[in-house]
């Protein structure tokens, strides 16, 4: 038995481009992070990072704040003298990025995204941009602010301040790429944002501890490549003109390698996401 069917007509409507739809996902993600308790958390995080960067940076340039000494780019590298700043960055990434995908799956709001005319890639790019833009606040803005502070308050030339700003932006972008892809990947593995957050922090800090242990046992700096934080540190120090413990190009390769692999696996993972229950 069949139902006799008259003709149907498709509705013709002009639609905006896919990139605009991706931007909608990004702005929705930003709104979600920039309201209520999330906003308080972000402001606090930005303040802590900002104060830390400025405090780290200021002693480095303190010598020429009153007109003495000859400032150099390496004087701005103090936030990257140890992994402490990066561990704080890890903590902030865990709190900001954990719910990126896991939150949508947990609340099943991913069902509404997937019922719209967007691809998995659109969804991931939108989500990644939302997380990345918040991380920019943490990883780029404080460094740039520190440079402006040094320029206006200290005896730092405009050229040097600009160069240091560029260095902070460059390192910050590498950090944003790594932390964002890692956060999305770990967030795609679970339905619970808190698990994803713990995983982000746990993976990065565990790798750091492991690298330190292996290094102390083997006395080989090569062990530091195991830790993404050490790799970031090497890249940052190199950019600021400080000689790092490991080859910065190799470290950059590891950072981008991790980013590329996690991005690919996240894509494949979300491609298989099904809305059940």
């Amino acid at each position, binding site marked *: 038995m069949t139902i006799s069917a008259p003709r149907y007509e498709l509705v013709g409507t002009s639609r905006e481009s896919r990139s605009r739809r991706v931007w909608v996902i990004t702005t929705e993600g930003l709104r979600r992070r920039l309201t209520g308790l999330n906003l308080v958390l972000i402001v606090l995080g930005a303040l802590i990072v900002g104060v830390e960067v400025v405090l780290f940076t200021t002693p480095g340039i303190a010598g020429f704040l009153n007109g003495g000494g000859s400032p150099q780019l390496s004087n701005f590298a103090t936030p990257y003298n140890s992994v402490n700043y990066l561990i704080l960055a890890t903590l902030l990434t865990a709190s900001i990025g954990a719910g990126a995908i896991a939150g949508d799956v947990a*609340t099943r709001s991913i069902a509404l995204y997937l019922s*719209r005319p967007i691809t998995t890639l659109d969804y991931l790019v939108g989500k990644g941009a939302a997380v990345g833009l918040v991380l920019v606040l943490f990883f780029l803005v404080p460094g740039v602010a520190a440079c402006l502070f040094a320029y206006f308050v200290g005896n730092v030339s405009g050229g040097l301040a600009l160069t240091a700003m560029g260095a902070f932006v460059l390192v910050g972008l590498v950090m944003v790429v790594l932390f964002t892809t890692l956060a999305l990947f770990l967030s795609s593995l679970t339905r619970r944002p808190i698990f994803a957050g713990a995983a982000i922090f746990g993976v990065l800090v565990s790798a750091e501890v492991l690298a330190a242990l292996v290094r102390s046992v083997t006395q080989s700096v090569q062990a530091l490549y195991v830790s993404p934080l050490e790799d970031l540190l090497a890249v940052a120090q190199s950019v600021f003109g400080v000689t790092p413990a490991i080859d910065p190009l190799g470290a950059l390769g590891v950072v981008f390698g991790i980013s590329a692999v996690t991005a690919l696996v996240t894509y494949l993972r979300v491609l298989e996401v099904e809305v059940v229950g």
Partner: protein
Amino acid sequence: MTRPVVVATAATKRYGEVLGLNGFSAEFGPGITGLIGPNGAGKSTFFRVLAGQLHLDAGTMTLLDRPADDPVRSNHEVGYCPESPTLYEWMTPEEFLRTLLRLDGFEASEARRRCQNALGEVDLLPVKDRRLSGFSRGMRQRVKIAQALAHEPSVLLLDEPLNALDPIGRVRLLELFGRIAEAGRHLIVSSHVLYEVERLTDQIVMMTNGRAIAQGDLHQIRDLIDSRPHTVELTTPQPRELGRTLAGWEHVTDVAFPRPDTVVAQTRTPDEFYRSLGELARSGTIAVQGVRGVDDNLEAVFRLLAG
């Protein structure tokens, strides 16, 4: 040229050991089609596959001649109202709809206009600025329906849309669905409460255990099942005499007395039963005051087909 809106061919979806769809084959025509089945029949799985949210393990499903697993192309044409209470809790209904309309590709001004229209259709304009997190189940249901309608899709997939609604809300939505169908759009409406679908349409697909067990016009389905046990309720002041007579008929398989003035008979050949009943009434030996085929009710049809 005529063609169905949705075609499922041996569609199979597994959840581990459980079969959500088990070789589901059916065609859904234009207008309103009711998808009827008990909880766990596979109705939601069917909708999610059509909305591009689940991937089939075997078989095919097309929507407006396009594969259902091409959501980017298909979802322009589909409005999906899921059964689960999925909302962005931190938004107001207006923000929620506008976000989804922007995801559909509408410009901000157009999204705003459509948002107002859709919220008006489901009587939510007075609360458009309240947070969704504070909404009741019925209000949330109306928001879900609004988001499915707002981009004016060709096909609406409504998974248990009348759940949690008050009687007035149900009537208004049933009227709205009717208007949408009259405007040339197509609706597939699922329910396990059969009278709801019965009030909407005669076109139905019945499913259970992931399979379609019947499809088409409700009355045609009744023709299909006429060879199966059929229940008739008779009202009479002489129940004992009537029961004795009915029990003597070869085609009557069961006689029961649910109330003092009521006899319920089950027959395998309804045509023959009604012919014999007519002769009995004409003879005047036993007074029969009322006859009601229990199987005219959609629920009974489903029970029969589902076994």
